[in-house]
């Protein structure tokens, strides 16, 4: 890069551009007239090759010369008006960045009345507006679908947004909060607190029993007591805690994998899962529209 920040290249470009333009003008002038030896006055130069191939003098039409002059004048005016000569900024002060910002400002201005209309509509109502839904879908596809999937049903580690199982709450305000500020869900490794390997396995089977999944009933009975440690966050009945983002263990939604092995792993290793904050990326009106879209995914009946 340092090659391009020195003084040499801007000067080089300036000199080459101007030399090129003046060179064209010079060539046009130098070739305007030619001395020929006329032998027979038949508009040929008198050169004959290959027995009968003669060189004719077919002059360039003058209007074509006019076009050359126009391009030369145009290129000089252009170089005065726009940045073309090294570091010279041009009289019009045009730059790519300014044009980009201008276009963005124009687009935002054009969209402002529509977003203002959306902003005045409550999320629950907005989610049924087809126009807002289409915009919300595009925002979701470009910014959220990478993790949550284009059908918003998530994947391992990425929550499904179309069901009624919410880690931090599924109300409009909660969704708005989640999008704006992001979320961090943290479960510490609990193996030490619970006890030995057997204890962990027993607790895991108790957890499985909460959702009536396949489990060993005798182990589950043994694990029930130790579950009290887990209940601090997940609640006594394992229904979870929206304020802490502790998942409900009594349903059949397993964000980090179902089955005994997966649960034992979570107890042993814990889990930190993060959704990054999106507040910086969007305007408040866009977040409003996106909230309506996400809220609408699990509240279709309305």
């Amino acid at each position, binding site marked *: 890069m340092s090659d391009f920040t020195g003084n040499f290249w801007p000067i080089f470009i300036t000199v080459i551009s101007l030399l090129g333009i003046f060179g064209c003008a010079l060539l046009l002038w130098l*070739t*305007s*007239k*030619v*001395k*020929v*030896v*006329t*032998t027979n006055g038949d508009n040929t130069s008198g050169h004959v090759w290959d027995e009968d191939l003669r060189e004719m*003098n077919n*002059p*360039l*039409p*003058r*209007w*074509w*010369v006019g076009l050359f002059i126009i391009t030369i004048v145009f290129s000089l005016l252009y170089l005065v008006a726009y940045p073309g000569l090294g570091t010279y900024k041009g009289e019009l002060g045009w730059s790519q960045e300014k044009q980009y910002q201008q276009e963005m400002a124009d687009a935002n201005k054009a969209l402002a009345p529509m977003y203002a209309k959306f902003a005045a509509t409550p999320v629950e109502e907005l989610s049924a507006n087809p126009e807002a839904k289409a915009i919300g879908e595009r925002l979701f596809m470009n910014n959220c*679908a*990478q*993790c*949550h*999937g*284009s*059908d918003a*049903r*998530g*994947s*391992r580690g*990425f929550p499904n947004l179309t069901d009624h199982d919410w880690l931090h709450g599924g109300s409009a305000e909660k969704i708005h909060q989640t999008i704006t500020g992001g979320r961090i869900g943290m479960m510490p490794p609990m193996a030490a607190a619970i006890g030995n390997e057997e204890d962990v396995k027993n607790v895991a089977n108790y957890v499985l029993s909460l959702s009536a999944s396949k489990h060993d009933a005798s182990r589950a009975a043994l694990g029930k007591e130790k579950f009290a440690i887990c209940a601090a966050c997940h609640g006594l009945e394992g229904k979870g805690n929206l304020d802490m983002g502790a998942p409900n263990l009594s349903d*059949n939604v397993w964000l980090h994998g*179902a089955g005994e092995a997966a649960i034992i792993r979570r107890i042993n290793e814990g889990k930190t899962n993060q959704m990054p904050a999106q507040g910086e990326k969007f305007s408040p009106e866009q977040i409003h529209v996106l909230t309506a879209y996400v809220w609408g995914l699990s509240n279709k009946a309305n």
Partner: protein
Amino acid sequence: MNDTSTSKTTDNKKAKIVEKTIPLNEVVISLYEAQDKIYPRSISGFFTNWRWVMIWLTQLFFYGVPWLNWGSRQALLFDLDAKRFYIFKLVLYPQDLIYLTAILIISALSLFLFTAIAGRLWCGYTCPQTVYTEIFLWIERKIEGDRAARMKLDTATMSSHKLAKKSAKHFVWIAFALWTGFTFVGYFTPIRELANEFRSLSMSPWETFWVCFYGFATYGNAGFMREQVCKYMCPYARFQSAMFDDDTLTVTYDEARGEPRGGRSRSVKEGTSALGSCIDCTLCVQVCPTGIDIRDGLQYECIGCGACADVCDTVMDKMGYARGLVKYSTQNAITNKWSRSQMMQRILRPRVIIYGAILALLITALLASLWFRTPFRVNVIRDRGVMARLADGGMLENVYRLQIMNGTESTQHYQLNASGIKDLAIEVDGTETNQTISVKPAESRWVSVRLEIPDGSIEPGSHRVEFEIKELDNNDSVVEKSVFLVPRY
């Protein structure tokens, strides 16, 4: 070594001396030539009539077709903003570019075919440059008079009479050119709306620009540039000689019959004097739109319009000589003195047959492919975020995004099916009953589709699946391939 170099030097010296001995004929000439205005004389005749037929046909099409409607829309409209191209019943999209390619190839081949048979037919009869020049010349003639009157007017000093005629001509030219520009824009934006905007002077800046630009191009090319375009700008004029051969019909002067040329009394019968049939009246030069003398033989400036043939025939009639001193003929016919039928027999030669066969094949292929074209398209894109996931009931799910583009102008209903794996189930978000998706006229819709199989029912890896999308009303269907991924846990 030494020897040769010495002889070379002496050669050079000799050359210099030779050059210096003839300075008398040396002249300085300008390499930039002022355009000599050409004043084609008006004519009538067989080829001229044909040209007017072609002018009427092409221009009735050009000015008329944008006003035709098909249903509730313009029949022929190239909507660049919406990227939809309406051609009567058809609605084409940028993806259908292949049809444009086919049409361009067919056009090029037709040009080759016509050129091989009868030279610059396109140039002489249908090229917009010729057609508009002819129309502008007609206007010019109506206002300023024919060749002699125009030449006199141009050399006359400026007077109110001259000013009136010149401004009347330019007024009509500009009005006609603007109408042409307006019609041109009417192919890209609905012409009736454009007409309303034009009347209330509320055309958008770009519409105004293009009307003026195309109008200016018409005015400049047909009013002023004329033959200069053919001589210096048109690439086709230069490369078509590659399609000529000795059996190509071109406008030809029968030199053997015409020479030696010379003026004579009208009472001299053909063949009774030492002179040939050409009476050297120079009318063929006066009518030529490119200002050449056809009697000098085939020249690159000749656009093959046949004006000289028409005017020469009228002169031959007046003289009581046989017609056809200037006529469509071939190199072979002239040198071998073939009869007309002998010459015509040579039209069906291998080159013409091959051009014709390829052309017929391409046209058939284009029509067949338009006929069997399914009026909708489907793109299948595997979800960017989710490779595969376990869902309720121990099902393994893959997610796809399907874009269905309805190319028709009515709402269509599509049914989705997937196959390729045992026990493959399909679920589509936001569908009406039975996996039916409706798409509004000429719109496209994205749908999320989930394919499910019981987990563990097939080995991990990538499996081919096929989506079949059926259009319910017409039973057209499209099959798109994709893959179903089974992860190794």
